[in-house]
């Protein structure tokens, strides 16, 4: 009996010890995995709290699939957007030509974008996209206050953005024919290799990024082999930059232009000579390689300078029309990306030949861009880019009416871009600053905006564009053009 009692006592002690050890371990388990709610049906009433916290919800009922779109058929789809955009100039200022008072409402534009996609046999596709807008601001403020050039360029517009046919006639060979945008280069803000499509410069710093490049009719032919892609582009349609006309607060040109002294102040005639499409072609070629951690591309292009240059001032002195001409340019260049952890390093280099000057000479220019992007911050991207353009054998008297790229022997630009998302990408804030510097002058355009998802496919964007004036074109008249802008856009 005594032995049994001792054994039972020992057994009890051992069991108590084991239970105590388990309890201690359970406490260690409870601590890191606490905070969970009790789960119905688990059958374990003693589960530590840290395993709870899960919602006792059923699966979500099925919803209509995205395919049930009212504007979509078996082989076609119609999409687009409807928007209202406006801007208000903050500072008093008047245009050089027309003396228009630009303070206050400067834009109230309703706009429709439409895009039709068709699936064709043998996996070919057709896309037709365009837009039309009307700007009510001119009626509200009085159309007579604006020059005819401004009304013509800004009051309304309609254009095609994409109108192409695309397919793969043989393996590894893609063809795309029609109006399209081909975007070369790695820079987001500074153009070095991105020369095939002209720009819409009518609203510097304000234009939607999707409208910045003007579509041009091209034939694009791509051949893919391993990591490489050879792309040939033939451009029979000649289009140039769309620039602010005289009378715009972004154009410093008087209208009419008067003959400079010692000539009598008579109006001068300036004629822009534009080459005819189909008779004059542009072309480009690019070889691109994409590899693990890096990519490289080599480019060549034969194209027109999108910025016209005054051939000579001599005719003006004689009272004859001055000729603005778009010079033929050659470009050879290269670009690349290299990733290093959260960093993206990028660069572009281009040698451009054929830049025109008023002494009827042609010059060459070397453009070098280096940039870096950082993705290491949560929901934030930071990008820095710097560009230098150097003109060789810079003439003593550069072109009248030319842009910074030929007005300076060395022109340096910089761009900073910071984007950040908030509220789970419901709000996207962007800061973009572009600085242009010459010999002793610095100008800038700074844009700050926020885009907020009001509801599905409805986005409200608002922000400011601030201009720092300088003697460097095109910033010489921008100093008081600071403005507030907004856009409400519904996409379907």
């Amino acid at each position, binding site marked *: 009996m005594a032995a*049994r009692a001792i*054994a039972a006592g*020992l*057994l009890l002690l051992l*069991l108590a010890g*084991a239970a105590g*050890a388990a309890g201690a371990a359970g406490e260690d388990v409870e601590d*890191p*995995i606490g*905070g*969970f*709610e009790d*789960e119905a*049906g*688990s*059958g*374990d009433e003693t*589960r530590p709290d*840290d*395993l709870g*916290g*899960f*919602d006792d*919800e059923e*699966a*979500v009922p099925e*919803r209509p*699939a*995205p395919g049930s779109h009212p504007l979509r058929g078996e082989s076609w789809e119609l999409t687009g*957007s409807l928007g209202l955009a406006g801007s208000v100039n903050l500072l008093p200022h008047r245009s050089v030509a027309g003396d228009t008072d630009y303070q206050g409402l400067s834009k109230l534009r309703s706009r429709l974008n439409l895009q039709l996609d068709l699936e064709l046999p043998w996996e070919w596709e057709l896309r037709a996209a365009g837009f039309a807008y009307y700007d009510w601001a001119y009626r509200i403020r009085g159309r007579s206050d604006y020059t005819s050039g401004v009304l013509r360029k800004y009051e309304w517009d309609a254009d095609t953005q994409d109108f192409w046919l*695309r397919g793969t006639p043989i393996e590894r060979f*893609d063809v795309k024919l029609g109006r399209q945008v081909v*975007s070369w280069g790695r820079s987001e803000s500074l153009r070095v290799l991105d020369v095939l499509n002209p720009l819409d410069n009518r609203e510097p710093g304000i234009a939607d*990024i*999707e409208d910045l*490049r003007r579509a041009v009719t091209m034939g694009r032919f791509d051949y*893919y082999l391993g990591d490489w*892609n050879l792309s040939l582009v033939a451009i029979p349609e000649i289009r140039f930059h769309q620039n602010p006309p005289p009378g715009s607060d972004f154009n410093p040109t008087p209208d009419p232009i008067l003959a400079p002294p010692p000539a009598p102040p008579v109006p001068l005639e300036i004629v822009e000579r534009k080459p005819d499409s189909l008779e004059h072609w542009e072309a480009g070629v690019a070889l691109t390689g*994409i590899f*693990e*951690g890096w*990519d490289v591309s080599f480019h060549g292009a034969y194209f027109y300078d999108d910025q016209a240059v005054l051939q000579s001032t001599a005719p003006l002195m004689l009272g004859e029309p001055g000729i603005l001409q778009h010079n033929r340019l050659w470009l050879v260049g290269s670009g690349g990306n290299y*990733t290093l952890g*959260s*960093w993206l390093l990028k660069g572009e280099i281009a040698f451009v030949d054929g830049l025109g000057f008023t002494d009827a000479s042609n010059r060459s220019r070397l453009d070098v861009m280096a940039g870096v*992007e*950082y*993705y*290491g*911050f*949560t*929901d934030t991207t930071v990008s820095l880019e710097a560009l230098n353009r150097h003109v060789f054998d810079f003439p003593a008297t550069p072109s009248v009416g030319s842009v910074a790229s030929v007005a300076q022997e060395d022109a340096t630009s910089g761009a900073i871009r910071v984007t950040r*998302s908030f509220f*789970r*990408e*419901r709000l996207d804030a962007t800061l973009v600053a572009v600085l242009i510097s010459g010999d002793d002058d610095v100008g800038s355009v700074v844009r700050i905006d926020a885009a907020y998802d009001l509801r*599905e*496919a409805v986005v409200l964007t608002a922000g400011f564009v601030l201009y720092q004036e300088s003697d460097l074109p095109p910033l010489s008249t921008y100093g008081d053009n600071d403005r507030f802008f907004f856009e409400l856009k519904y*996409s*379907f």
Partner: protein
Amino acid sequence: MSVSKQLAIGLAALVAAQAAPAAGPGGREIMERVDARDTGDNAVQDMEMILIDKGGHERVRNLRSFRRDVGEDTQSILFFLSPADVRETGFLTYDYDGAERDDDQWLYLPALKKTKRIASGDKSGSFMGSDFSYADMTDRELDFYDYELLQEDEVDGYAVWIVQAIPNNEKEIEETGYTRSIFFVRKDNDVVIRAKSWVKKGERNKYMEVKRLDRIDGIWVPTEIHMTTKKDSATLHKTVLKASNVRFNQEIDEGEFTVRRLEKGL
């Protein structure tokens, strides 16, 4: 044999049983099984993401994704179908095995009509505004964690292992944003059906729960996952991720995972 001797042997056995760990896999071994689980050589699926804020307001994202395994590496490409303002946006990822190799990523921006290469940065950031982070959408390196089998339990009638994973280096914490995770792994099919993670920033917790698990082409697929972000017991935000039209081991050409395809779209 005397009763006392039998009792002593019994006691010894009881002590031995208490002292020795239960026979079965350890934490690391369980997670290796999870990692090795068959997910098909490639997969195609439609995904619907429902983002629900604490006020109950919903935003919906629809995507189509393609994935293929290239040895130990994974290539994936996904296209946004809706909402309309992000339609045609595409995202291409080459997820390389091994910590020394950074992922390659490209983003196609339809507004720019341009493909942009991006660096694989902060994986703790939200994927498309959801409660899933980029770290949640990619495989984690087993060697970067210390695993411990906490206990065995049962969830919805299925026996599970509960495994704790703690990053063993600061870089992994910084990249993923998680200081600790607990996984509920079904014993019968090695699927993680629940997970709780501790988020470094904001002292929050994320709860992942597989609400629907289907077997398609012999492969277990979570077809509905709920991810909830909470602070203490208050729900801050929730995402419901639903997969449909799931197909495995399709004839998908390697050319479907290239910048060329990204720019052409669906």
